[in-house]
């Protein structure tokens, strides 16, 4: 499948924006009291969200998890309200109710970030069922980690989705670590994609640091889903460059392993590919990165200038 120059540039752009966004968060987390709560980043895994979301139409839905920033930015979420929510400010996309961990951006069809590991797939099944029920030519993508795959809910969701041929694409972001456990310590089968055969659905493992490969796999899964052929499982093999959270010293991750994966960073990889294809120039890349930096600076300014909600606003939004 030929991937258009526009799509390739879009992927590079959302990866650059995500990286700038999360690198900024890493710095902000070092400042005591700046950002409340935990901070869980997807640095180094940007090819997955950026590749997958580029393969979707705006009306397609994503259900994401605790490592959501890249997924949401790639789906088109506004960096300002996202950053303000991470700061827990009133102007945040969820009025300070969600913080960084549960960002919900229904306006870009990213209605749910669940931090309950393995909870996304059953909800994605419901969202995909609604698409099928209404006869929409739309799909739902569900991102979950290799750790989540140990949850029974993930099995239940895949079983039901396959049985009802729901238009859902399960994307397992295999980043080698579930908390402090290495993949082989929590999963007996070296291939997560193999699990698809248990549900008689296509399962494919792709290089999760190759945005073009992720795009291709998701595009094909989307076409199958729209043709009524049901769900797919795509295992994206990548690596968790940061800890489980920013407070995690990663003492259990070998230094040389982290270094080796940083060498395989998905951003220069796509950049060099685009340069080699002659689709962009070095100046274009610089301009993109400058723009990403400016947007992130603006988002931080917006968040810092925004007020906190008043305490009583805690009582709002429980019931419709």
């Amino acid at each position: 499948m030929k991937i258009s120059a526009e799509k390739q540039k879009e992927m590079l752009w959302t990866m650059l924006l995500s990286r700038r966004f999360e690198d900024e968060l890493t710095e902000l987390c070092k400042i005591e009291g700046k950002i409340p709560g935990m901070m869980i980043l997807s640095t180094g895994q940007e090819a997955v969200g950026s590749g997958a979301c580029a393969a979707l139409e705006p009306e397609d839905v994503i259900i994401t998890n605790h490592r959501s920033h890249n997924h949401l930015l790639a789906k088109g979420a506004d960096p300002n309200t996202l950053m303000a929510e991470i700061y827990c400010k009133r102007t945040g996309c969820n009025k300070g109710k969600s913080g960084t961990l549960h960002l919900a951006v229904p306006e870009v069809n990213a209605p749910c970030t669940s931090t309950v590991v393995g909870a996304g797939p059953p909800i994605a099944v419901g969202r995909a069922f609604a698409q099928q029920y209404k006869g929409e030519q739309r799909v739902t993508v569900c991102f979950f980690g290799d750790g989540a795959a140990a949850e029974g809910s993930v099995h239940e969701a895949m079983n039901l989705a396959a049985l009802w041929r729901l238009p859902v694409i399960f994307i397992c972001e295999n980043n080698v670590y579930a908390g402090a456990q290495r993949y082989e310590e929590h999963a007996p089968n070296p291939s997560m994609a193999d699990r698809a055969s248990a549900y008689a659905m296509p399962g494919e493992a792709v290089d999760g640091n190759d945005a073009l490969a992720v795009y291709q796999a998701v595009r094909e899964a989307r076409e199958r889903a729209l043709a009524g052929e049901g769900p797919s499982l795509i295992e994206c093999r990548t690596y968790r460059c940061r800890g489980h959270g920013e407070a995690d010293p990663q003492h259990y991750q070998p230094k040389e392993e982290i270094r080796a994966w940083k060498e395989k960073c998905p951003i220069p990889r796509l950049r060099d590919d685009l340069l080699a294809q002659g689709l962009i120039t070095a100046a274009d890349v610089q301009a993109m990165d400058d723009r990403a930096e400016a947007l992130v600076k603006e988002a931080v300014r917006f968040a810092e200038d925004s007020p906190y909600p008043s305490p009583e606003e805690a009582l709002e939004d429980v019931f419709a």
Partner: protein
Amino acid sequence: MQKLGMGQAVNQALREEMHRDPNVFIAGEGVGVSIHLNPMFPTHGLLEEFGPGRVKDTPVSEAAIAGLAVGAAEAGLRPVVEIMFNPFFTLASDMIVNHAAKLRYLSGGKSTFPLVVRMKSGAGFGAGCQHSHNLEAWAAHCPGLKVVMPATAADAKGLLKSAIRDDNPVIFIEHMGLYFAPMPVPENDYLTPIGQAEVKRPGTDVTVVTWSGMLGVAMAAAEKLAQEGVSVEIVDLRTLVPLDKETILTSVAKTGRLVVLHEATRTGGFGGEIAAVVMEEGFNLLKAPLRRVTGPDIPVPASPPLERFYIPDDEQLITAIKEIL
């Protein structure tokens, strides 16, 4: 007026709402093709009428059923899913407690989740404690959920129709013991408001607050006490969340005495909540200490004499009332 068991009343509500609104669908284990070919059961005949597109038989997967409801509701459908028995709530609880109840709040009010989770409950069937366990207090303890427990077939119909039209997640618990006794049910399309208790029997000496399967026990006790000249007022909560404090307090103001009666176990039960509300907001109304009559703090046993021991009866209620008269 037609006479229906509660299961049939639920069936009528489902049928009418599915005709009214194409966004309403039902899903669960055996809601279509059931091993119980029994017209007294709530989803009997709906598959034949609405087809497999809207009456969805699922695998034995409570988390997936509840997740289906959450995702579909967010997309604008109005799922009514069945979790076969109240104790299986535990298998669906992540989706209900952490998602159905919380996602509206987490979205800052951007998303709504108009879903209904129907569950059967209640002791009295010799099924033992993994099928009989009233967990309404668990659901009531989760902000973001409404909790409805009708005691009559007429209320079941009107309340379920309201629940389906409500834009919030509603936990709807049906007592199996009420499926088989026909009761009058209006034939028209009517809505019973969620959050309004009803005085099912007026009285002047003592208030009994109850709900679901215990209404009959309260009525029997009131009948017996009436022979002795004691006038019992019975408040049927119908809805636990939101709680109709006003009707409770108005009744206690009238009688000055309160007994709370529920089938669920005592410790942490919803009766404690009613007691606390009356102590905080109606302490001066009380002429005597209030009492709770509840199931004992044990799992529901299977053996008939043990199960009978578990279920609160009218004699226990009469004893409690006499203690505070």
